[in-house]
């Protein structure tokens, strides 16, 4: 029986060293820098639009007492009465957050694909992994890649949400900062399983493919299929309740979505590592 403590500390130390190296390399890679700049630019534009939209809709909801009732009726006609719980929360929350999460759901896979699609196959095609694995293991390398890329997106999302909340506070007199803490934290919490899912899928594809282009195409094909499923699996996109919590992270949706998304993420992670473990380097 091997001693677990030294194995774990070595794993931790190696993963940390490789993670820092990967982040350093990421931030020096022109494609990653351009993609991050584009992502931030598009977020700023979205935030600008959303902040004004939120203020306008908030005013309408306040002025017309029955607008919520009208929306409920629409959902019932669509046989989506289960989701009227969403409306209760939307009236309490600034709309900015769910809308921003909705925007992020579609943007993140593309952004991650651009930055991270070759996170493994570039090293493998250069042959440098053979040299690196004289000093460390494939598992530590795989984990460090995953964590480095996940951390990058988590920090970017946290900064984006903070900027959006700040923008909302500056433009709306009705919103007070205390009201924003809970939505901010819940949206950030829900970002974790979704980002884990997206990064693990991208790492899986990178472990599967040999070139950047094939990796990029495969990642996009994958997300296209996921979107198709979301649209056609059930009556309406919102019927795909496992993903609903990512956009509306409250009530029952929250934990169902977290468990469901993490389950898929772990499956892709295990599959990706199994592929990588057996692949030629």
């Amino acid at each position, binding site marked *: 029986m*091997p*001693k677990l403590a030294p194995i774990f500390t070595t794993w931790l130390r190696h993963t940390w060293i490789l993670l820092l190296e990967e982040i350093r390399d990421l931030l020096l890679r022109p494609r990653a820098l351009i993609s991050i700049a584009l992502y931030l630019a598009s977020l700023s534009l979205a935030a600008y639009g959303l902040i004004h939209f939120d203020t306008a809709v908030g005013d309408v909801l306040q002025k017309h007492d029955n607008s919520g009732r009208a929306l409920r009726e629409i959902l019932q006609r669509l046989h989506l009465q289960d989701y009227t719980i969403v409306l209760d929360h939307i009236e309490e929350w600034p709309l900015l957050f769910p809308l921003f999460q909705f925007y992020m759901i579609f943007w993140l896979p593309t952004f991650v694909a651009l930055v991270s699609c070759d996170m493994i196959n570039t090293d493998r095609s*250069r*042959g440098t992994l*053979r*040299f690196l694995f004289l*000093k460390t293991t494939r598992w530590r390398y795989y984990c460090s890649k995953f964590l480095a890329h996940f951390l990058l997106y988590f920090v970017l999302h946290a900064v984006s949400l903070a900027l959006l909340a700040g923008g909302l506070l500056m433009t709306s007199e009705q919103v007070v900062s205390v009201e924003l803490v809970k939505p901010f934290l819940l949206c950030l919490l829900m970002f974790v399983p979704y980002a884990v899912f997206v990064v693990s899928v991208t790492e899986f594809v990178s472990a599967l493919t040999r070139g950047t282009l094939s990796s990029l195409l495969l990642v996009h094909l994958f997300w296209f299929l996921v979107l198709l499923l979301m649209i056609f699996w059930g009556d309406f996109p919102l019927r795909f309740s496992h993903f609903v919590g990512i956009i509306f992270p409250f009530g029952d949706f929250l934990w169902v979505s977290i468990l469901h998304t993490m389950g898929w993420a772990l499956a892709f992670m295990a599959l990706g590592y199994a592929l990588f473990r057996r692949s030629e380097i």
Partner: protein
Amino acid sequence: MTDALLKIEGLTRSFGAVRALNGLSFEVPRGVVCGFVGANGAGKTTTFSIIGGFLKPQKGSVLLDGVALREYLQSGEQVGILPQDMLFFENRTVGSQLTLFAKLAGFTGSHAQREARHVLAAVGLEEKYRAKPHELSRGMRVRLGIAQALIGDPALVLLDEPLAGLDPRMKKGIKELIVSLKDRTTFLVSSHELAELEEICDYFCIINEGALVRQGAASEILETASCIVYKLVAFDGRLLDELKRAFPQYELYHAAEGVLELTYRSDSGSVASVNEEVLPWLLDRKVSILEVTARQTLEKVYLSITD
């Protein structure tokens, strides 16, 4: 053998239907340069992969310093390895990649940088700390590979074909480097360049088809087979065939026009006894003998015991 650093017993490893190692056992004494000799497919790379901890044997054990390999590596000790294809990170400086390797080997912060400089100095590349790998010659890249293998002062360093693709001057430099580092560590060197190995190794392990054929000190091994080179006039292929039939116990090779190489086992004869048989036979057939030279080479030993 006393004071064996590496002790391998009964290693067996198959890949599908191909048996790469077939109960391989050998020992390497401490502080030697040990030549690890075998044909392509004899199991050298598989053995290196197992000693490096990248591959598990199906049977058998590897002991380093009397400790099972797995425990040895888990205790923080290292086995240095120079792989055959040294593909460095081309976008990083020599110093930064050695520092990364030193960190992975357990050095922290400035100690890692110091270790990187230390191993670079040991291979004579201290001034290349800030160079990129593509700025180095092939010989320098081998030196850099040896430097990374020395990180953490491993007791055993495996060198896989360190002389392949080098020009004579570079080979000379690498051979001198290996010999100069002998006080620091034990080397297990795999190479097909047997003449070169003969110059630097003081111990040999010869394997064939996944099993040990012979091991021992260089002096003992080289005595086991000897070669006599005859420079002759009026010797042709027809006579070679006749000679082979007359003396089936010897390995005979018509190396060039008028040059005949004869290899015999040292334990079954001597230069004099062989000449007593062969020279009269040649003279009877009107072959003039210009020169007779006796020598011992690793290549002859290898060929005679692996045939």
